[in-house]
């Protein structure tokens, strides 16, 4: 009798697991998103920025100006170097105008700036996700002392005034490999927010019947974590990731804005906005162009994250 009931449970385990996995977000999420016009618009814009980032050298060849090239003919030296022509020097030659003083092509700098934004945001998200999931799983699954150590450490990191500290550290560090440092610093302070949620979900999943059943059938810990628990965290992770990217785009731009991000002359959107501050009243296009690109990118990810969340979890808010 007892044997047969164990068999029943063991046989039932993969089935329940499969049932839960059948609500696997990926297919249905795509399906829902592709029927939502605003989600499509966001996807298109994000795709555009990614193409810009990847094909930057090519695009710049077509537009005719590279991002570091000075164009003294496009600015008026008598007026302190403001761009010639209205709207910040927007013309057939310079599609989005030029920078005051240097005359560098804003379109080219936007295209190259997309590289910095996307590269840093995506890498930081990837690193944060790995750290957050690994530590969240460890703390949630093993509990006890492991959980205590990880949780305390997370509390400590979250109590840190992250922005000020990031800026302070970045300003103290040599500027050679800023991109990597940016990713590292952002991730170090970012992962606890994901880990906290993963931990809580792992703890509740651990109690669920199908995991208990798998454990009863003698599955190893590694197998349990990877085949039973992780697949069920997919939708949570998916939502967190789509919401983390815009956050990190904003953080990178903010840090660059404050002068501790991407090092000039390498362009980044935040840094472009930062250098436009002293010109905002004379050449408004100078901050409007990168500002619009940046705000739209963040908006696209936010809307997308919102839609993904409601697709993954229609009941929840």
């Amino acid at each position: 009798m007892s044997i047969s009931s164990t068999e029943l449970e063991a046989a039932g385990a993969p089935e329940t697991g499969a049932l839960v996995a059948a609500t696997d977000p990926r297919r249905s999420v795509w399906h829902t998103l592709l029927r939502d016009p605003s989600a499509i618009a966001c996807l298109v814009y994000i795709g555009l920025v990614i193409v810009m980032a990847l094909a930057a050298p090519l695009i710049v060849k077509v537009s005719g100006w590279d991002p570091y090239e000075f164009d003294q003919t496009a600015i008026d030296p008598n007026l302190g170097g403001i761009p010639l022509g209205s709207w910040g020097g927007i013309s057939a030659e310079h599609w989005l105008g030029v920078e005051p003083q240097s005359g560098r092509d804003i379109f080219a700098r936007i295209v190259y700036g997309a590289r910095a934004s996307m590269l840093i945001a995506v890498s930081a998200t990837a690193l944060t996700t790995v750290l957050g999931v690994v530590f969240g799983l460890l703390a949630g699954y093993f509990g006890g002392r492991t959980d205590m150590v990880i949780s305390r450490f997370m509390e400590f990191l979250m109590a840190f005034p992250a922005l000020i500290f990031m800026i302070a550290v970045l300003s103290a560090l040599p500027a050679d490999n800023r991109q990597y440092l940016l990713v590292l610093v952002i991730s170090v302070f970012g992962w606890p927010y994901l880990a906290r949620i993963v931990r809580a979900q792992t703890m509740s999943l651990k109690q669920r019947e199908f995991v208990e059943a798998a454990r009863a059938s003698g599955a190893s810990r590694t197998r349990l974590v990877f085949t039973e628990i992780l697949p069920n965290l997919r939708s949570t992770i998916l939502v967190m990731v789509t919401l983390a990217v815009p956050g990190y785009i904003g953080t990178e731009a903010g840090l660059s804005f404050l002068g501790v991000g991407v090092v000039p002359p390498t362009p980044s959107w935040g840094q472009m906005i930062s250098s436009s501050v002293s010109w905002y009243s004379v050449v408004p296009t100078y901050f409007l162009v990168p500002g619009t690109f940046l705000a739209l990118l963040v908006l696209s990810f936010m809307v997308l994250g919102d839609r993904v969340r409601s697709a993954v979890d229609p009941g929840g808010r």
Partner: protein
Amino acid sequence: MARYLVHRVFGMLVVLFLVSLFTYMVFFLLAPDPAVQICGKTCTPERIDQIRANLSLDDPFLVQFLHFLQGLFLGRDYGTGASAVHCSAPCLGYSFQSAQSVTDMIVQRLPVTAVVAIGAAVLWLLAGVVGGLISAVREGRFTDKFITSLTLGGMSVPNYVLALVLQYVFVVWLQWLPFPQAVPFADDPAQWFLNFILPWTVLAVGYASSYTRLTRANVIDTLGENFVRTARAKGLRPDLVWRRHALRPALTPIVTIAGMDFAGLLGGALITESVFGINGVGKLAADSITKNDQPVIMAVTLLAAFFVVVGNMAVDLLYSAIDPRVRVGAAS
């Protein structure tokens, strides 16, 4: 309750200690030699040695750190003999740039930052709670969709972009607001107030957006609660049902988050203060970072951490004060 408090305060001190240790270590290991920096261009080796001695820069790391803590709690002396300068507690050292007492610098700027933070918090709480409530009771209709789209926009625009746009529109273009210049409150209260309108708005927009979403979600949840049905069954007016029965429970988590956000802002709104040239702690932080003024950076980091940690604790206490269930639980 008393035990809980002692426990919390102790935990708070540990976190603050770790933050200061960690920050101190980062600067000790990574930053360029402050003596060279202070000394400037017309520097002689003797002068550098003198500075190093005055600041005890030759001591090992832990000794220096202990001196820092000593200054913070007991006060300390810089230099020896007749040239010694006493810095009374809480001593955060002297700026490498201006030789001013860091404690004084902070004390001067903190009220400004408090004004920025309080004004912004009032705005975003009002907008967020009212917007969220309206959105929730009109769930799924046009008003709700409109407000929700606005909040997405509000969360997407980086505040420095918003700052520049608003400044351009209202100051340069429409000229509804005067060009910002620092005026003491006593001299010209109207001008003083006008100066803060844009910074308050810029800071509030992002927060207001997320508070609107949060309030909306919470109110929608509470509207489904049985006690809201009871309130309706009593024949209460809808506005009373929403305000008393749906909003009140929904506000509890919002109050906690607001406390945290407010505490975070007291540590200085770096970007907003810099863009608008407001002489608060945030601008002090941003400036000290660009000038690599270590004692000041150290101080503002600690100050921000202090507010975060204290805010955290205050919020926990507040929570037990506003939720009757927790209130009684803590007392027994």
